């Protein structure tokens, strides 16, 4: 079966965006989006774990008995999370410190386990790697934009650079996180609904055109 990479990319970033469509991985999304840099850090860490755990799970999908698939998946995911922790502590200590408790919690991140269970355990290595990559990109983009908005409004800065003295403390708080998340989900749903409506209309029009053409030919 041929892998539809275009569909995998579209699913990961838009139609099944883990943060804004599937509402998975809510805990780090709400807690870590006080700054855009945190969003990038968390997004990249999750992407790394997603890609590599998907690849390994896909490679071993026929060898892992289905009775122990969940513990086996968690074992694989935990290994990659530990590797990410060690690497971040060594190479990027500031990001490692800013992510704190949420870094080891990637082990139980719903996005990774969900993709392992629903995609990697049923598909080939390349498709699984692509799924991990695009799901990771979707997650990173969502977290970074949310982080940027909250940082600009809540701290008057972007990527740690001060823009102005004006700031609304509410956006740095937990309530602000929920509010921003809700607005993002609403706006994202509005945009994707509009796009899908347009593509549906386009499809219907094309079908109508074909149908009319067939009638004319028959006549």
């Amino acid at each position, binding site marked *: 079966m041929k892998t539809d990479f275009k569909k995998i990319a579209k699913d990961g970033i838009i139609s099944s965006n883990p943060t804004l469509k599937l509402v998975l991985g809510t805990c780090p999304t709400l807690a870590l989006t006080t700054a855009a840099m945190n969003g990038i850090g968390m997004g990249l860490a999750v992407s790394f774990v997603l890609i590599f755990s998907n690849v390994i799970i896909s490679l071993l999908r026929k060898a892992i*008995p289905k009775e122990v698939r969940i513990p086996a998946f968690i074992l694989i995911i935990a290994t990659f999370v*530990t590797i990410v922790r*060690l690497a971040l502590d060594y190479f990027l200590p500031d990001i490692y410190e800013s992510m704190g408790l949420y870094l080891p919690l990637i082990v139980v991140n719903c996005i990774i386990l969900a993709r392992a269970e629903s995609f990697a355990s049923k598909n080939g290595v390349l498709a699984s790697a692509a799924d991990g990559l695009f799901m990771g990109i979707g997650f990173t983009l969502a977290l970074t934009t949310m982080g940027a908005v909250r940082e600009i409004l809540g701290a008057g800065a972007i990527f740690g650079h001060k823009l102005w003295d004006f700031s609304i403390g509410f956006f740095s708080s937990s309530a602000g996180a929920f509010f921003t998340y809700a607005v993002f989900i609403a706006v994202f749903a509005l945009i994707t609904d509009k796009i899908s409506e347009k593509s549906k209309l386009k499809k219907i029009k094309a079908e109508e055109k074909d149908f009319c053409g067939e009638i004319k030919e028959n006549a």
Partner: protein
Amino acid sequence: MTFFKTIWFKCISCLLILMLFSGSSITILADLLYVSPEMRTARAIKKIYGEEKEYSVVLDVDSKDENKNTAIEYDGVGKINKIYNITDNGDILFQTTGYKGYKNGTITLWIKVVNTNEKYSIEKVLLEKYEKQTLMSKLSGEFYGGFKLTDVTEAYNDGSLFTATDKNAENYNPVSGATYSATAAANAVNCVIKYLGGER
């Protein structure tokens, strides 16, 4: 032979093999990416001064020298883990751990003390790590800035140690909603005041 075909044998062996691979790869990487206490100290110095500095060790709990590796304990307050003398400017750098945080946890800080003709002042306080504290995000840069002190000896002689709970105290540095964590941080700074005040 049927034993080797049973599902439970397959399950157990699959998990064991995965554990073996996972354990060995983590062990190798943990060794390759090990961050030594010296590296952590160098990082802290770079964060405080913006560049690497040479230092001499007065006290370091990680040191192999038995005369220098005993922490200085202050009962119920905290302990001093490290003391470094910065060679080129005479500053003293402390790493202290404050007790009585949330759930009896601790907060470890780096504290930069400037020495001007035996007059000590606390210039900068930086978070190193913490244990059991859940609301550390409430401890902002402004909070750590509240620990600046122009004359440490005078503060010690007046008995004005830092507190996060006593509103009437001179060195009151509170954090709304994270009083326990703020207390542990204050205790970490108080260890330095006690040390420089002569309690050693």
